[in-house]
């Protein structure tokens, strides 16, 4: 294990009724977060390979946690997203190193396929800072019903030398989605866009 993990948190949010209307089956979003030590906190380091390797490890770990929490087959995942909150002694580029080069490939294994870009967000923050993890359909980014976000927050993290890494996987779009656009059943899922 490359990442030094202090805490892992898994949340599931199910919506059964929205604006008085029953949602059947309920929409379900799972969020998995790891609170990790930032090995590069405190000074500038040119090479970020250590964080890139941690990202690769967490992509699989957190993706699996989400799928497991939803209790679905990997192929039944519909949308995903990722985010990181870097503690004060770290650099925004540290979040980029974790999220962008290698986190995606093992996450795509965890959800099967995943032709679309994994939407992401990042920020510097402190204990209890919230980040809204953007979500998009995993195989066709233009599927409008699946543009969404889920709030991620750990009450006691990140400490100055920590990073909170978050992955969200859903088995559904927004409840009561009705703003048109490309529908999930119309998507081809070949180019990651449509």
């Amino acid at each position, binding site marked *: 294990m490359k990442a030094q*993990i*202090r805490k892992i948190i*898994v*949340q*599931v*949010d*199910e919506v059964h*009724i929205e604006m008085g209307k029953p949602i059947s089956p309920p929409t379900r979003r799972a969020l998995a977060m790891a609170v990790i030590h930032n090995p590069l906190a405190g000074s500038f380091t040119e090479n970020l390979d250590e964080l890139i390797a941690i990202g690769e490890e967490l992509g699989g770990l957190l993706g699996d946690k989400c799928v497991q929490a939803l209790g679905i087959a990997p192929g039944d995942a519909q949308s995903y997203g990722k985010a990181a909150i870097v503690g004060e002694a770290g650099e925004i580029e540290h979040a980029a190193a974790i999220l962008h080069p290698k986190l995606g490939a093992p996450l795509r294994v965890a959800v099967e396929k995943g032709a679309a870009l994994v939407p992401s967000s990042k920020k510097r923050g402190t204990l209890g800072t919230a980040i809204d993890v953007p979500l998009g359909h995993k195989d066709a980014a233009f599927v409008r019903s699946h543009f969404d976000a889920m*709030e991620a927050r750990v*009450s006691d993290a990140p400490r100055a030398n920590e990073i909170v890494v978050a992955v969200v996987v859903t088995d559904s779009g927004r409840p009561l989605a009705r703003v048109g656009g490309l529908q999930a059943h119309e998507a081809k899922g070949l180019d990651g866009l449509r």
Partner: protein
Amino acid sequence: MIEIRRIFTHVESIAHEFGPPADQPLLRGAIGIVMTNPYAGRYEPDILPMMDALGAVGVDMAERLRVAMDVPAERIQGYGKGAIVGANGELEHGALWHVPGGYAMRELLGWKGDRNTYAKGNVAQTPAPSSQTANALSIVPSTKKVGAPGTGLDVPMTHINASYVRSHFDAIEVRVPGAPLADEIVFILAMSMGARVHARVGGLVATAISKWDGLR
């Protein structure tokens, strides 16, 4: 009367808090059920029908939380409960949770009493047994507040068999993004599988429980 809008579960595994990593990470969990508050926006003198209606909700929530934590009931060592009432409700609506939330979780964990007797508040004083005959003997600690969507609640937790076990005094912050809306209530249950991860402030330890009175 019972309209469940959202179900939110939270499970966390704590490896350390900057001390020696635990052999087994501390597992804690909470569930928040977002419900319509049938009494929102007015003063309703008789709110007890809701307490009865919540009984089945509590049982279902306790089991959902146990499943989310993926542990057998026998391994739960700490618990707590709480409620966050939306802006068009009153604190007293949150107090409806004391009986259905508390006894549901206690029954799941092995309590043998009769919740209906306790609900009426006329419990005969019986001497505590000299050895352990059941589980979940302690009162379930609780807290509640009126709050806006996304308000956090620090839910207190204590040992399930003896409230004075110092290593198990704990709290877990529970917060459901976007809830409660003004006409909603978030009812919360929390469970823990052990002591604080680096517990070391002395006092009664779980292995020394001897009175079986729910306190010591």
